[in-house]
């Protein structure tokens, strides 16, 4: 009997109020027993670790360049005095002390240029022109020997300016090579295709350090007798050729993503091979791979630290030089490493955030 009688299902309770800090906490940290337990355990661990770390790194730390004070707290606190004492050596390397305004201006100029290149409004042909101008100014400032500036040979260059110079210049020079190699790998001409593939696969198969060894030990043998080339230029050539292979693969990925119909349509319109590539294919392909290109730039920026192994004193090498030479400060090398780690982090992190932003922009244009 009762099976036939009408029994309304009780209305479900309204969903819990789902906004505000408390609701966020509940849904994100204590949504069920397992989540709650892991929150408590992890939170406990963090509470256990973070205060001692903050004490070590901030509250008890020594901030003045005072060796005695640093020694006194060595066991229990960080000594940032080492940075206060050595920061000019770390950032500018062996560049003559009274001339260090030159790398400072040059670096700031270069960084402004980098930032400008990230802004879409400036993606115009004159950007290339201003890059050449800025690089020229950079070299005149750094090298001197003209305009009343004293000459500073390249082996005195070091620190952050050298890092930025190596990263920027090798990417700027690698880019045209990468474009040609990427096009060559997709060309109809077998000899050129084979050569380009060989180049890319060979370079990508070996570590950068072996390329750098080659640049610093073998390169002098390659040159005609009597011709010596500055070690900075040799290393720059090595990094450029290395980056070009990686960038070429990135660009090739973009080229492959351009639909074949685009090329056929352009050919039907009577455009020549180079016209097709320049006006139809590359603009589409490059727009697609901007995030990957930025990632390559990040990788290059980090890779510049390797040149310290072939005795160029960029940021990592300059730190070693600055601290190893001074027995007083040597026990505090870890703080030095942390300092340059933070510099690297700031650069790489902002670039990766930029690449994520570009990726979102590119995806936005695809949504219609």
């Amino acid at each position: 009997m009762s099976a036939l009688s009408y029994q309304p299902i009780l209305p479900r309770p309204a969903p819990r109020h789902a906004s505000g800090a408390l609701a966020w906490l509940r849904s994100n940290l204590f949504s069920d027993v397992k989540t709650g337990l892991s929150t408590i355990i992890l939170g406990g661990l963090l509470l256990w670790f973070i205060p001692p770390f903050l004490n070590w790194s901030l509250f008890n730390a020594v901030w003045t360049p005072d060796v005695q004070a640093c020694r006194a707290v060595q066991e229990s606190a960080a000594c940032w005095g080492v940075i206060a004492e050595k920061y000019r050596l770390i950032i500018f390397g062996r560049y003559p002390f009274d001339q260090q305004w030159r790398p400072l201006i040059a670096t700031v100029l270069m960084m402004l240029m980098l930032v400008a290149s990230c802004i879409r409004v400036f993606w115009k042909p004159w950007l290339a022109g201003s890059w050449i101008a800025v690089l020229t100014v950079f070299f005149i400032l750094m090298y001197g020997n003209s305009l009343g500036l004293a000459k500073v040979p390249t082996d005195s260059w070091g620190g952050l300016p050298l890092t930025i110079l190596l990263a920027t210049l090798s990417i700027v020079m690698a880019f045209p090579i990468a474009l040609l190699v990427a096009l060559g790998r997709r060309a109809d001409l077998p000899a050129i295709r084979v050569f380009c593939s060989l180049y890319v696969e060979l370079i990508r198969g070996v570590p950068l350090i072996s390329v750098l060894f080659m640049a610093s030990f073998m390169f002098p043998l390659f040159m005609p007798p009597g011709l010596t080339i500055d070690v900075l230029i040799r290393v720059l050539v090595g990094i450029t050729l290395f980056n070009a292979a990686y960038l070429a693969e990135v660009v090739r990925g973009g080229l492959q993503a351009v639909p074949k119909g685009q090329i056929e349509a352009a050919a039907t319109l009577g455009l020549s091979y180079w016209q097709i590539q320049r006006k139809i294919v590359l603009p589409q392909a490059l727009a697609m791979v901007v995030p990957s290109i930025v990632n390559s730039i990040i990788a290059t920026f980090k890779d510049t630290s390797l040149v310290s192994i072939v005795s160029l004193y960029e940021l990592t090498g300059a730190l070693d030089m600055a601290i190893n030479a001074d027995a007083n400060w040597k026990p505090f090398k870890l703080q030095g490493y942390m300092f340059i780690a933070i510099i690297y982090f700031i650069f790489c992190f902002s670039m990766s955030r930029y690449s994520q932003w570009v990726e979102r922009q590119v995806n936005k244009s695809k949504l219609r």
Partner: protein
Amino acid sequence: MSLKSAPKKKRWSWRSQAFRGLIYQIVAIGVIVLGVWFLASNTLTNMRVRGIQSGFDFLNQPAGFSIGESLFPFDSAESYWRAFWVGLANTLRVAVVGIILATLLGTVIGIGRFSRNALVRGLCSTYVECFRNIPVLLQLLMWYLLLTEMLPSIQNAWQAGPFFLSKGGFNYPIPIWQAGHAWALAGLVIGIALAWLYHGWARRQFEATGIIKSMFWVPLGVVLASALLAWLLGGAPSALDSPVKGEFSVENGGALTPEFLAMLLGLTIYTASFISEVVRSGIASVSRGQTEAAAALGLDPGLEIRLIVLPQALRVIIPPLTNQYLNLTKNSSLAVAIGYPDLISIANTAMNQTGRAVECIAIVMAVYLTISLLTSLLMNSYNKRVAIQER
């Protein structure tokens, strides 16, 4: 209106694309050959002028330097040839262990970024951002500094049971080889064979009846049980070669040097941050509808991951994962900066001693190329297995 007849096709004309292509290629080959000839002739002249000897005959000469750690015994009277082998073995050792650990850590962190717990999510993404954005060389140097400066001296080594940790590295007990271990090994092999047979049977059962047998715990149990049984049959040898704290060093047992530990820690932690991104993007590439459909079919979360998410995510994951493995192997060349005797360090020493830069760099490049190509081949064949089987 007169119809113009189509111009006769001339083969050897500048207007023919094929002809132009041929010319371009000949020019390109010519330029490359000329370039290589130019470099080679310069090199030969320079070597003659500077009196540098060339050739690979130095490989048979005694190396004259000792190597801090090696998988097989090496002393300075042995040849360069063998020194290079020691270096290669050291490279592979740190690369293989690093790859395994980085895969595990990277997978855990990659999955952690999908956690329902905001704390876990936050920690995982902090980890990725921190370690991905600092050069691996710097990280290696930092780990090495930490391991050699901040740890207690050997006299005051930290001890946990038979394990020691100090500036001298990490010491652990190893079992002393006895006949019983051969039994255990044989048992292990038999166990694996049995598990393989079971796997085939369970698969046929599944195809015939649709009933899923345990594919993980039962085979694992079979392998372990048979190894344990054989070990017991072999007399259950349990003698351990435990490290003992001596006057100046921790003696006996197995040891990991601080150089190896620094390499392993640095490479694992750095690469894991990239692998976790690979894993994350792989999982994110499986659309939500797939998991919802699986849940609607009544699969429990474990099966859902194993049968639905993983096979689809792996397709996206494998190619970039291969790249990360290759990167780790190539980054192991940074060992030269902290003195771990890998291939590059050995080549560097050999180069300084013999002056044969060209040969040493050629050996290094050839070895890394071979490793890269082999890894790519291996991973490509695995990739083919997980790729979509299209008709």
